[in-house]
């Protein structure tokens, strides 16, 4: 079904230019801030300058007198609406506007609504807030120290900053493995706090129609349906009077999954002013207050035999969740999918524990293309494997090859209970090594080392875990993780497909048309994709965790197959034969043994809408729908190799080459898949070398603008070298696995392993990301620093 050679041009899978590009290259996209509604007002948020402070008083009287201000909203007003606090995505609450205390720098304190953007900002300056500053909890490692100030005194009887303990795997069995192991290596490591930082920040326009009572929320959301239901549940708004409309989105990467206070404030603002209210955050607001990612302090411990057979792995995590526990992941899993941390290797036992703590930092934690913390898991295991290789004095490629899961082990049940669907791991690693010219690189490195030059070669092998549900195991606040899809073939044979997921640049308007085309034979150009509008699409949980292709893509495939099956019955009536006498060729049912007698999908569609007498039980028209509840996750994988040169004088790292072999099953559109891989690789270079949000001792955020939060440009990125293997998923109707986050998940350890490989002559065993010139230089001196704190 996936061999494009069998199909006419313009049908099905293959390299097709994107439908959405026509508007984007003309500057005619429609992003949230491009939308202007009649009578629209502008909102701006007053934010806390302190990480932790008691609010003594808020005086908005001067701001309210500003000639262009229409309203000022404070927490006190929200309390009267029971909206000062709303449920978080993780059994906690978040403050929409602070009432008692501010708990992180940048927290929302008041909301001004004015006639224009500049006036709203002006009026923020006119609000007087009297704070009593409290000590801030900045170091997660000290959050549970006795006598530490309690951040969440809003929770009854709360006496500490503890959130949860959680574990997975067999602890006793893992400890038993360590007892008998020849070699044990331990390593502390930090995956620092980073931020998805999409080019477009978050924003919303709320438009309450006071006559019909219908509220339309235009919003930068990756999950419009989930948002609508949550608004209905939390605010008591009738769901049929709620429309969430997600326009073109300028990048999401997990940043646009959650419901932020600004969205809620726009809604309240529109209800109060009876006019549309737009709120779009600025870059500092985005970096300082919306969903950060990672912030995992990990203690790794790996066991092996003397000859390098990995026996077991243990990772104990201290998770910094910020001031509110608002991580976005399936309800059952407070550490997301971190417990897939045994990765791509065959081992007897594995155990992880995760302890969550509050600090005076912004909430979040699951974002930035992380596949629900598979990113942290892959980093942990891939660093530990490299640490083991160092200890055993083995080549890290040999060590990996020796321990990778073998094809015959699939479907494979991991020590923590995951069932990996399919994989041919050694083949992918070998291909990456072939593209890299691995042996030659090692020879070159040896020569360079002899000359005092610092060249490093780093590997990582990752197993992704994407496409959540199934819904019996996975839900977000009780909403099962399934997705709907509706396909309708118009009388003339053109089609429309309606999705519950929402693109943020992934190209759904093209790839979902290709899925429908692949199955029905209707040309890609003739399939229109509708998404992002809850009034016009079926319910589903949305786009994050690389779940669009595995879940919604499966829904589209199944709905399309139902179209084809219905078309068969209609064709049999048209051809006056039994359905069993028909065979399908692309886009056409024909009589077996008589190819001249057949009906195309367009002819069938017209007949389905005309006066043809249909077989009993067959309704007219040619449409179908599907709600897809995936039987399992999908497990894309890949092998990455990074080559770096380090300047011994400055510590500056240059990524010279990056080889990425990805296996995401069959590729709907190889051009788009490759593009997604490229973007994720740049993320990896950014996180490994540049990106982090540290804090000073007072809890001041030191990564609050693009002057401080450094993102990779064209100069930091090499020309990516990509390769492909194809191992279909056995349970997805088209074998597809998803790829959106693979490279972001898989690439950071390859870069870090490469840099540390370059620093091997200095005896450096580990240094935490980001490996900035300062960090590398300090590592060379034997003093790598903590990257989460500005004070050492």
């Amino acid at each position, binding site marked *: 079904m996936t061999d494009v050679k069998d199909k006419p041009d313009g049908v099905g899978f293959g390299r097709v230019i994107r439908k959405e*590009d026509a508007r984007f290259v003309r500057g005619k996209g429609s992003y949230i801030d491009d939308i202007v509604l009649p009578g629209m007002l502008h909102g701006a948020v007053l934010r806390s300058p302190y990480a932790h402070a008691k609010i003594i008083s808020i005086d908005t009287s001067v701001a309210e007198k500003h000639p262009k201000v229409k309203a000022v909203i404070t927490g006190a007003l929200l309390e009267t609406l029971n909206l000062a606090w709303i449920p978080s995505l993780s059994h906690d609450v978040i403050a929409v506007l602070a009432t008692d205390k501010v708990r992180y720098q940048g927290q929302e304190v008041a909301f001004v609504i004015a006639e224009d953007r500049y006036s709203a900002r002006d009026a923020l300056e006119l609000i007087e807030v009297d704070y009593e500053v409290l000590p801030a909890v900045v170091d997660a490692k000290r959050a549970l120290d006795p006598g530490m100030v309690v951040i969440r005194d809003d929770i009854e009887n709360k006496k500490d900053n503890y959130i949860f303990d959680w574990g997975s795997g067999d602890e006793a069995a893992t400890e038993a493995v360590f007892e008998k192991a020849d070699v044990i290596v331990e390593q502390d490591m930090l995956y620092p706090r980073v931020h998805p930082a999409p080019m477009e920040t978050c924003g919303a326009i709320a438009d309450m129609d006071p006559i019909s009572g219908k509220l339309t929320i235009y919003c930068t959301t990756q999950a419009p349906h989930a948002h609508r239901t949550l608004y209905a549940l939390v605010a008591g708004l009738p769901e049929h009077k709620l429309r969430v409309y997600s326009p073109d989105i300028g990048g999401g990467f997990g940043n646009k999954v959650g419901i932020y206070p600004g969205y809620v404030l726009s809604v309240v603002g529109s209800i109060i002013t009876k006019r549309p209210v737009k709120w779009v955050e600025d870059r500092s607001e985005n970096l300082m207050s919306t969903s950060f990612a990672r912030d995992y302090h990990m203690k790794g411990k790996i066991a092996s035999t003397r000859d390098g057979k990995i026996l077991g792995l243990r990772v104990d995590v201290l998770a910094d969740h910020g001031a509110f526990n608002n991580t976005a992941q399936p309800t059952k899993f407070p550490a997301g999918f971190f417990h897939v941390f045994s990765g791509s290797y065959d081992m007897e036992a594995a155990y992880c524990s995760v302890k969550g703590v509050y600090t005076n930092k912004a909430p979040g934690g699951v974002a930035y293309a992380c596949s629900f913390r598979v990113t942290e898991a892959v980093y942990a295991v891939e660093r530990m494997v490299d640490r083991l290789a160092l200890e055993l004095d083995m080549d890290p490629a040999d060590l990996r090859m020796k321990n990778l899961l073998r094809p015959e082990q699939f479907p494979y049940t991991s020590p923590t209970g995951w069932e990996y669907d399919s994989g041919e791991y050694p083949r992918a690693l070998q291909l990456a090594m072939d593209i890299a010219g691995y042996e030659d690189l090692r020879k070159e490195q040896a020569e360079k080392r002899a000359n005092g030059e610092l060249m490093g070669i780093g590997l990582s092998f990752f197993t992704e875990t994407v496409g959540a549900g199934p819904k019996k195991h996975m839900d977000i606040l009780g909403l099962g993780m399934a997705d709907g899809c509706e396909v309708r073939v118009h009388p003339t044979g053109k089609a429309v497909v309606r999705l519950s997921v929402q693109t943020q640049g992934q190209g759904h308007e093209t790839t979902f048309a290709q899925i429908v085309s692949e199955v029905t034979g209707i040309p890609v150009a003739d399939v229109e994709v509708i998404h992002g509008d809850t009034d016009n699409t079926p319910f589903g949980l949305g786009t994050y965790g690389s779940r669009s292709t595995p879940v919604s893509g499966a829904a589209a495939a199944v709905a399309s197959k139902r179209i084809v099956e219905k078309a068969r019955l209609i064709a049999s009536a048209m051809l006056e034969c039994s359905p069993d006498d028909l065979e399908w060729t692309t886009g056409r049912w024909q009589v077996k043994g008589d190819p001249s007698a057949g009906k195309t999908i367009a002819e069938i569609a017209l007949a389905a809408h005309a006066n043809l007498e249909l077989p009993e039980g067959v309704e007219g028209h040619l449409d179908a729908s599907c709600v897809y509840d995936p039987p399992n996750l999908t497990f894309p994988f890949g092998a990455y190799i990074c080559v770096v040169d380090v300047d011994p004088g400055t510590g500056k790292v240059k990524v010279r080459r990056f080889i990425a072999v990805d296996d995401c099953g069959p590729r709907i559109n190889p051009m788009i898949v490759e593009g997604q*891989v490229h973007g994720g690789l740049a993320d990896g270079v950014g996180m490994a070398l540049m990106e982090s949000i540290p804090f000073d001792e007072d809890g001041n955020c030191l990564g609050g603008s693009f002057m401080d939060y450094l*993102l990779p*440009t064209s100069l930091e990125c090499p020309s990516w070298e990509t390769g492909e293997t194809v191992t279909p998923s056995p349970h997805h109707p088209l074998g597809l696995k998803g790829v959106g986050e693979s490279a972001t998940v898989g690439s950071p350890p390859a870069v870090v392993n490469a840099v540390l490989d370059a620093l091997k002559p200095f005896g450096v065993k580990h240094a935490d990301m980001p490996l900035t010139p300062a960090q590398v230089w300090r590592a060379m001196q034997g003093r790598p620093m903590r990257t989460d704190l500005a004070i050492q």
Partner: protein
Amino acid sequence: MQVNMLVNGVEVSDDIEPRLLLVHFLRENLRLTGTHWGCDTSNCGTCTVWMDGTPVKSCTVLAAMASGSEIMTVEGLATDGELDPVQQGFIEMHGLQCGFCTPGMMLSARWLLDHNPDPNEEQIREAISGQICRCTGYENIVRAVKWAAAHSQKSDTREEVGA
């Protein structure tokens, strides 16, 4: 205060607040929303437009400073409905995903090609290095500019504007 400028070849004038940024003047007063805003600190370059033939970051230019100037935005790239080779190159080589940084990237690319019709990879990377893209990892942007270089006609009218 009164400002007058030539935007994409059209004379515009407006009475504005002196503090109004060029990016907001273009987007809100003229409703040319192809120019995007991304950071406030001149780091991301998504607001890049041409002012008198030179790319500038319009989030750090006052509209007042642009009075009397010629401005070109992404909406001015196509000629009589015909896409500029840079625009076509971005489509052909998948040089964009979410599309947010794309207008600024294309304007820098056009400027580069007007001054260096056959740039090598290093020159292309240098030319777009003041702009951030979070989706593409830059590889396909480089390929798009190369495609445009290979398909640009030497007699492009914009060469005079950009020179």
